[in-house]
């Protein structure tokens, strides 16, 4: 119980808190548990890499224009994009982290997976179609549609880069640790391999290659998780009740795993986290960018429907896998670090930490071949997520900052794409370096911070500029910055950073997640400053709302499919 409480308070997002469990274990434990080189996994992963590099090679040959590079020529179908969105969203942290959380505490794991899902309907109802109707390559296109190009693009590019930076560091560190554990590769090599591969996918293949990497990864992950769940359920004659009953008999916490535990101890933190997860999803730049890869609003809408289905299905599978791990692993000492007398704690002593529950379950259900497959899938999963993030960061630099702000739109497509490729290389190198620097730091707060910034800066600016006629440049700029700064400040002053990273005695901000405060600050800021903005530019911006409104609602005049 106390361990859970620490988990809950130490991190915003339990999955990454869980990943940090591996990290917190530190180098000594890591050294003990590092696996010998896992050849099955490495060969299967090499097959994945070769296949995706082949796709990248073909995509590079077809990528000529800026529309090809940023938006795959608008030629992705709704179904494909749905899979790609799911691929972008289902990280290794959610696969291993949530199943590990279910393994450790049962029901509480379900609370987190739900939080990560419920943002999708909101994206569909309020954002997706309007985004496709108004934008071209990035969500800044939409936010700056009728507002000042320079200021709003700088704001949304900063919002993008902040989200990408924190998300990317968390993924890189998690990736390095995970690969070290799974494959027996050195941490630094693991980080370099991930960094180099994502640079190759993005810089050479652009959005087309990145999309196909996401699609293949999503299919592999869903197939692997489905197979594992079927084997688990088959043992119980496909009766969840029988599986739950066996889990209750096996788990040291007994019947308590079927009910809420200590994870949601504080309702304010729980609601704040819920807000960040729900609305942060609608402000993640690498997700928003995916809506420009389809031909029209109808395809954008369908892609969210499919993505929601895949992600929902995936979270149900992780729940089954978590319970499967309880029933398959807990009575088998070979998966645990044994004490002097052969005794072990059925949760704490699992080899490699609770995050490894799904990995061990692969061994228990399908032997070393299945273990190799699931390990390779976990690696592919990390790779796909970081590639999507890198592409979105590179687009913010080349399309928003360079082409529209520095060159004021006077730049050739070839040059813009070239800058994007160099940005991708630069972002990849920075990510490798940061991944190396942060190896032994607590990065669990970073994913939570990324979601909080997305919910408190990107989402309010986007939503208000599209839905409220009165939004002006000054309002969006001030409100967006207030949301960004307050979210970052509250996270820095919270326990995870102020106490656990900086080592101060007491945190200055009592809650784990800032969204319940920083989101209203952003919306109120946009509203109030816009209201008081009586400049002539503000009047012109309000007057030009009608044209934007018609296009956002009907798609009349929207940038057509970019396919040649």
């Amino acid at each position: 119980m106390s361990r859970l409480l620490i988990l809950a308070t130490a991190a915003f997002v339990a999955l990454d808190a869980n990943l940090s469990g591996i990290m917190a274990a530190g180098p000594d434990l890591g050294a003990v548990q590092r696996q010998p080189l896992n050849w099955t996994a490495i060969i299967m992963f090499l097959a994945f890499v070769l296949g995706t590099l082949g796709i990248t090679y073909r995509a590079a040959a077809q990528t000529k224009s800026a529309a090809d590079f940023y938006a795959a020529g608008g030629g992705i179908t709704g179904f494909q994009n749905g899979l790609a969105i799911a691929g972008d969203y289902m990280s290794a942290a959610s696969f291993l982290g949530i199943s590990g959380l279910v393994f450790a505490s049962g029901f509480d794991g379900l609370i987190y997976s739900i939080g990560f899902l419920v943002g999708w309907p909101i994206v569909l109802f309020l954002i997706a179609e309007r985004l496709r109707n108004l934008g071209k390559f990035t969500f800044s296109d939409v936010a700056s549609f009728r507002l000042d190009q320079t200021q709003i693009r700088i704001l949304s590019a900063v919002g993008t880069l902040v989200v990408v930076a924190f998300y990317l560091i968390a993924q890189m560190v998690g990736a390095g640790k995970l690969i070290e554990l799974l494959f027996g590769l050195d941490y630094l090599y693991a980080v370099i391999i991930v960094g180099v591969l994502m640079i190759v996918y993005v810089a050479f293949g652009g959005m087309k290659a990145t999309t196909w990497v996401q699609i293949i990864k999503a299919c592999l992950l869903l197939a692997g998780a489905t197979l594992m769940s079927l084997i688990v359920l088959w043992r119980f004659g496909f009766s969840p009740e029988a599986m739950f009953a066996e889990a209750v008999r096996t788990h040291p916490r007994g019947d308590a795993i079927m009910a809420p535990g200590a994870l949601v101890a504080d309702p304010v933190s729980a609601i704040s986290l819920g807000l960040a997860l729900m609305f942060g999803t609608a402000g993640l730049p690498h997700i928003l960018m995916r809506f420009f890869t389809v031909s029209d609003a109808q395809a954008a809408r369908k892609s969210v429907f499919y993505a929601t289905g895949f992600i929902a299905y995936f979270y149900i599978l992780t729940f089954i896998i978590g319970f499967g791990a309880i029933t398959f692993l807990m009575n088998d000492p070979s998966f645990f670090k044994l004490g002097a007398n052969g005794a072990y704690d059925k949760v704490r002593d699992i080899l490699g930490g609770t995050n490894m529950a799904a990995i061990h379950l692969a061994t228990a259900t399908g032997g070393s071949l299945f273990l190799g497959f699931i390990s390779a899938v976990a690696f592919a999963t990390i790779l796909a997520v970081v590639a999507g993030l890198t592409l979105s960061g590179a687009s913010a630099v080349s399309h928003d900052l360079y082409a529209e702000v520095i060159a004021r739109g006077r730049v050739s497509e070839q040059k813009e794409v070239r800058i994007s490729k160099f940005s991708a290389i630069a972002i990849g190198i920075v990510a490798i370096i940061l991944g190396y620097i942060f190896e032994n730091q607590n990065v669990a707060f970073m994913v939570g911070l990324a979601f909080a910034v997305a919910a408190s800066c990107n989402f309010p600016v986007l939503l208000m500029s599209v839905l409220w006629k009165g939004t002006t440049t000054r309002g969006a700029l001030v409100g967006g910055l207030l949301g960004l700064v307050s979210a970052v400040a509250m996270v820095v002053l919270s326990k995870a950073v102020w106490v656990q990273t900086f080592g101060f005695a007491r945190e200055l901000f009592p809650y784990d997640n800032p969204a319940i405060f920083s989101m209203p600050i952003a919306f109120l800021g946009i509203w109030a400053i816009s209201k008081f903005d009586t400049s002539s530019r503000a009047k012109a911006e309000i007057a030009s709302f009608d044209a934007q409104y018609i296009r956002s609602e009907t798609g009349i005049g929207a940038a057509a499919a970019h396919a040649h």
Partner: protein
Amino acid sequence: MASLDHNQVLRSPQFQDLVRQRARFAWTLSIAMLIIYFGFILLVAFAKPLLAAKIGDGVTSLGIILGLGVIVSAFVLTGIYVQRANSRFDELTRRLAREFI
């Protein structure tokens, strides 16, 4: 698109009809999702015994059923929206486009 008369579109009954219907539908569904999700979180925070209650004689708790229900409801709500948008809203949009382009 320079020829598109914005005032004319804004005043047209079809446009107003489309925007009003879709806004009402989308906000209703959004609020439904918010109530379902935050209702669940509040139950987790304040009604733990209720969620721990068993279904029948088995070990499966009400909380698990409700939690899975929230997941399924998210998918069902998107399905309801897509269904309505594919038929009704797309038809209204097409009619509008025919009239003004």
